[in-house]
């Protein structure tokens, strides 16, 4: 095993732990937008698709990389836009803390 692979594995393991840590106390109302947001992040695959497109040198490689770039970009653009649309819905919520408190006292 070489040093580069070990570095890559280290990054991989730490990123997994990081992924476990960032999701823990999410209210259920945010589960769907959060899933959609995470969905957009794996659109980073488009970076890899760009590499294979520029390094392509034969028709089949051009074809595969073209589909990969298009797929990856669709994942990124569509993912972020639809997540933003979902979250926009939550924004206009003039939560009145006073009213909520009053009701709790009443109960």
């Amino acid at each position, binding site marked *: 095993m070489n040093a580069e692979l070990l570095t890559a594995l280290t990054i991989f393991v730490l990123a997994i732990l990081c992924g476990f840590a960032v*999701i823990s106390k999410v209210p259920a109302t945010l589960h769907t937008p*959060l899933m959609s*947001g995470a969905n957009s992040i794996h659109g980073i695959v488009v970076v890899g698709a760009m590499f294979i*497109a520029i390094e392509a040198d034969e028709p089949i*490689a051009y074809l595969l990389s073209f589909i*990969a770039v298009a797929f990856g970009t669709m994942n990124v653009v569509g993912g972020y836009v*639809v997540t933003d649309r979902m979250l926009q819905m939550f924004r206009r919520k003039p939560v009145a803390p006073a009213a909520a408190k009053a009701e709790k006292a009443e109960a």
Partner: protein
Amino acid sequence: MELSVLETLVRVAWVAGAVAFVIGLIRMNSPATARNGNLLSAGGMTVAIVATAVFLALERGGEAFNVTGWIIVIAGIALGGGLGLYTARTVKMTAMPQLVSLFNAVGGGAAALIAIDDYLHLSATSTLPTLQVNVATVLDIVIGSVTFTGSLIASGKLMGLRITPSRPVKIPGGQLVTAALALIVVAGAAFLWIPNLSVPVMLLILAAALVFGVTMTLPIGGADMPVVISLLNSFTGTAVAMAGFVLDNPVLIIAGALVGASGAILTKLMADAMNRSVINIMVGGFGGGEGTVGSVGGAGHSVRELGMDDAAIQLAYASSVIVVPGYGLAVAQAQHALRELAELLEARGVDVKYAIHPVAGRMPGHMNVLLAEANVPYPQLREMEEINPEFDRADVALVVGANDVTNPAARKPGSPVSGMPILDVDHARAIIVIKRSMGRGYAGIDNELYGNPKTGMLFADAKAGLTELVSAVKAL
């Protein structure tokens, strides 16, 4: 190893992108910062992509400049970006879950294509891949392909396409087919890892994985699709991380692993909220979706059917009404009709609130989005813990297309829903249930609520029923 200035810069930009992804996800944990978190994440993505483009243009410039490659990149970005932007902006909020699944499918497809391309390239140059590349390539192809077809089927099921009905589809000899496909994949992978360089075997693995994605998802019912989509989302993350190992690209590894892990946790949270286990869902037990299994009449129940006018009178002369919207409301897209009824009641001085179960709708949190889209004032939406004590004082609980989340059987042991948090609908003075039939929910059991003497059943499609109620209230 010494990096060029350019390569150093692009790698720094990737780290910045990764930092934005992590902080973005953390900020998306709370409603107040969620939108900002998503924008931060999108900003990080833009930086990473632009830096990559600049790097490729300069580093592979001059003699090595690949004109066709750049045409491919620009055309691909234009096509994919255009399609993504158009569909994301025009989709109805009720159809949003299937669109997310579609975006997930193409992400998994892109990851698989990268590995396929890399493998063909190795084969063309007769280079025997190193073990790490070989392992990552096979895993990328398998996971990416399963996600691709699996997510497409999940999306189709949510759209209710004829070829992918939302009910569970039994595949003849299903278990056997699945086992055979898994065997092909494992045997093929072992053969390649020995190591051997064989394009036909790679293609065989690819084909088996693509079919596996279909046979895995088809037998699962529509009501369980949110959990399935979330699981496939986690798979795509893992496939992208594998693509990162294939290309030796750190940002793909980081972002992929991040999504793989966070997606797995999110899947478990979703399954927990539905009182299901992920394994249970994937192996497929009950998962029919409302009204598909169901015996009309229900054993041992004597249910009271309510007329439209009686229901209208009960609602109009109540002083407080709690609406319990569920899956059936989302399916019938009845949120606008519901808001109209609520506004009509409020104009008559009735206090209207909405009780939102954590898993109401087609996905956790989906109901909030649907009602917000129909312009229901946010302060009227109440979470379960907050609204439950208020049922004791409510005159009418109006249940629209919700089933298992209102079943009092959950309070007692010995039923499939036991222990699931429910809305205390049966505490209200009167209960009106709008429902198509006595069909069961996805837990596949009868709802004791319907046999309650306080309960009146209005057998109708959620949208049609609410529209008729609106005219009945207007006529009073």
